[in-house]
């Protein structure tokens, strides 16, 4: 790097330019295709669930009993009578008792195509629970011919809509849990590493004690302790706390190690020699240098939390109806018969899988990005 600071002229001309750390990091991130795709997938998922009222064609409790366990409706473009059109349509579904198996069988009523309209008014809802609206991304104009991308559950509710609503819990549990986990982990880790001594010894032993327990049984024990009579919102908060309570230990250790190494570095000594307070050193020197690691750890902790919530809800000790989450939706597919006869009931698992994978890929990408000079 020839005397760039003493000779600033070429930089102004734009012949070459020195990239800032942030630009270097951004480049590194964009080079990782998988991470970029994952980030986009996650953005779409989060937006779709936050605005579930808009993206879901039907309400989460909006069931039609005659459509109990009805399979996904096929979205078609060509009709025998009306011909083909670019606008997709569905046929109405009618249930008939099979004379051979005595099972309900669903057949399409091909007499009339029901076109799917986008940005269509329908059942009212509240955006993020605040602003009332009734616009839906897509639906048919006839409520007897419902478009159901992922089939119906036992009470004839549209699974796709329910997954979107359930995602509100599943996806936010990850973020909220990780928020608590990051705050707890980084504060305790920094204090432990910076001050050392008895505080360090006590917290480290405490962390070791916590980590000795296998995760799932401890989660189960803790969430079983949440009173069953609590309102659903409280239960939700309780689950978040339970999940974060066990997750912070890993981050706390990582942050402690980083603090131990950073506090001996010359730039921290220089700040000390200038009379900087502990708070200032932590704020200006330690945290910014640890931030990238914290972000990576947090990103990788989100899927763990999501899986934890799903596991608890699946086992019936997580969130309870009328709230729903992907784990809870999956618990409907608990029985082998259900899976055998109505395989679409497993769809929530697909969403969990995609989310967890995407977070892991994103975390990997961020990890590469953290060290842009390598």
């Amino acid at each position, binding site marked *: 790097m020839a005397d760039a600071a003493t000779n600033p002229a070429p930089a102004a001309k734009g012949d070459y330019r*020195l990239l800032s750390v942030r630009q270097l990091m951004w480049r590194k991130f964009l080079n990782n295709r998988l991470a970029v795709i994952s980030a986009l997938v996650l953005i779409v998922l989060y937006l779709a669930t936050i605005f579930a009222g808009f993206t879901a064609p039907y309400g989460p409790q909006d069931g039609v009993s005659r459509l109990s366990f009805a399979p996904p409706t096929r979205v078609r473009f060509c009709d025998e009578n009306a011909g083909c059109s670019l606008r997709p349509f569905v046929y109405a579904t009618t249930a008939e008792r099979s004379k051979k198996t005595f099972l309900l069988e669903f057949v399409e009523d091909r007499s009339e195509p029901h076109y799917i309209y986008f940005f269509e008014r329908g059942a009212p809802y509240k955006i993020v629970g605040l602003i009332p609206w009734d616009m839906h991304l897509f639906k048919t104009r006839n409520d007897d011919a419902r478009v159901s991308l992922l089939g119906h559950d036992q009470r004839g509710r549209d699974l796709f809509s329910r997954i979107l609503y359930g995602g509100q819990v599943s996806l936010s549990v990850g973020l909220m849990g990780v928020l608590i986990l990051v705050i707890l982990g980084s504060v305790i880790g920094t204090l432990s590493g910076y001050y050392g001594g008895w505080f360090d010894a006590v917290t480290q032993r405490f962390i070791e004690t916590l980590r000795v327990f296998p995760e799932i049984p401890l989660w189960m024990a803790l969430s079983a302790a949440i009173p069953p009579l609590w309102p659903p919102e409280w239960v939700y908060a309780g689950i978040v706390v339970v999940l974060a309570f066990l997750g912070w230990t890993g981050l706390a250790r990582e942050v402690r190690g980083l603090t131990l190494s950073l506090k001996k570095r010359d730039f921290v000594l*220089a700040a000390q020699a200038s009379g900087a307070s502990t708070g200032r050193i932590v704020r200006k020197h330690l945290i910014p240098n640890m931030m990238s690691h914290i972000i990576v750890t947090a990103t990788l902790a989100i899927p763990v939390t999501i899986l934890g919530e799903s596991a608890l809800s699946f086992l019936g000790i997580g969130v309870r109806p009328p709230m729903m989450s992907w784990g809870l939706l999956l618990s409907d597919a608990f029985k082998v018969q259900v899976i055998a006869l109505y395989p679409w009931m497993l769809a929530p698992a697909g969403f969990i899988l995609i989310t967890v994978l995407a977070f892991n890929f994103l975390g990997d990408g961020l990890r590469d990005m953290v060290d842009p000079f390598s």
Partner: protein
Amino acid sequence: MTDDTILSVADLSLRFGAKPKVKGSGLLAVNKVSFDLKQGETLSIVGESGSGKTTIGRCIARLYAPSQGSMVFQAKDGPVDLATLDKAGLRKVRREIQMLFQDPNASLNSRMRIGEIVAEPLEIHGIGTKAERIERVRSLLERVGLSADAVNRYPHQLSGGQRQRVGIARALTISPRLLICDEPVSALDVSVQAQVLNLLGDLQKEMGLTYIFVSHDLGVVDYISDRIMVLYLGTVMELATRDDLFAAPAHPYTRALLDAMPARVGGKHRKRKVLSGEIGGPSGLRKGCVFAGRCPFATDICRTHEPELRPWRRRPETRVACHHADDLDLGSYDQPPPEPESLP
């Protein structure tokens, strides 16, 4: 202690990891070091790795709290003992004592812009308004030879020499009176070393700075110092003016250090003796002269009694810690000593 003494260190000791009840436990990094520092002079501390030279510097900057001894500093508001100063007093006196570090890569926070780094001491002490700080930073950066638009750069965008200049600018923002330079040029290229040393020299004259210059490089020390303190295992071996030390070293260890210097290009090929052995462990209890194990002139008394730092008979302003100093002729930098006869 004369009127222009800025710092008077007496009996400074530092023991790392000492257990309170075990005598001689831990690691004695600094052993009863005493010296006076005059306003405007440059005192170099030289020694091998592990001799405690950096530790002394960090004690004076109070990055380490000494176990023993006093360090009386003539602050603007009157003398204070750095060794026993409380937090508030320390904060105040830190405005007058600053530090320059060895490795400019490690001493600049890579997440901060140059401007923020240089302005940090001003912010810590709440000096000036934001505009004044920016102005001060710009003028200082220019003074140390960087362009003012370096303020928006990050350390990794600068070269090693430029980074060390940033380090100098940071140390000088709050106009300290004492600058502790901890091997400031040993991580730099030789050509850049000279530039930085010249800059330090110029700044000293301009601002009336006093330097404590820690180094292992006698060539650099020869260039910049007024006086030189030779350290071995945390103990002062010799304290002399630069010219005296190079003209006639009083201590066998100083002689050994001079012998270890590479010959200057075009200089005379010197006959030299290379010290054998390694620097010993600076562990707790010890007896006799710390250098006795490697000293070619050591006798029984050296192994049993620790020599005191006392004026040398041949040159009383030089102080030396050696039982035999008065009887030895160690030659000079260019002149090898005569073959040692057996001592009486």
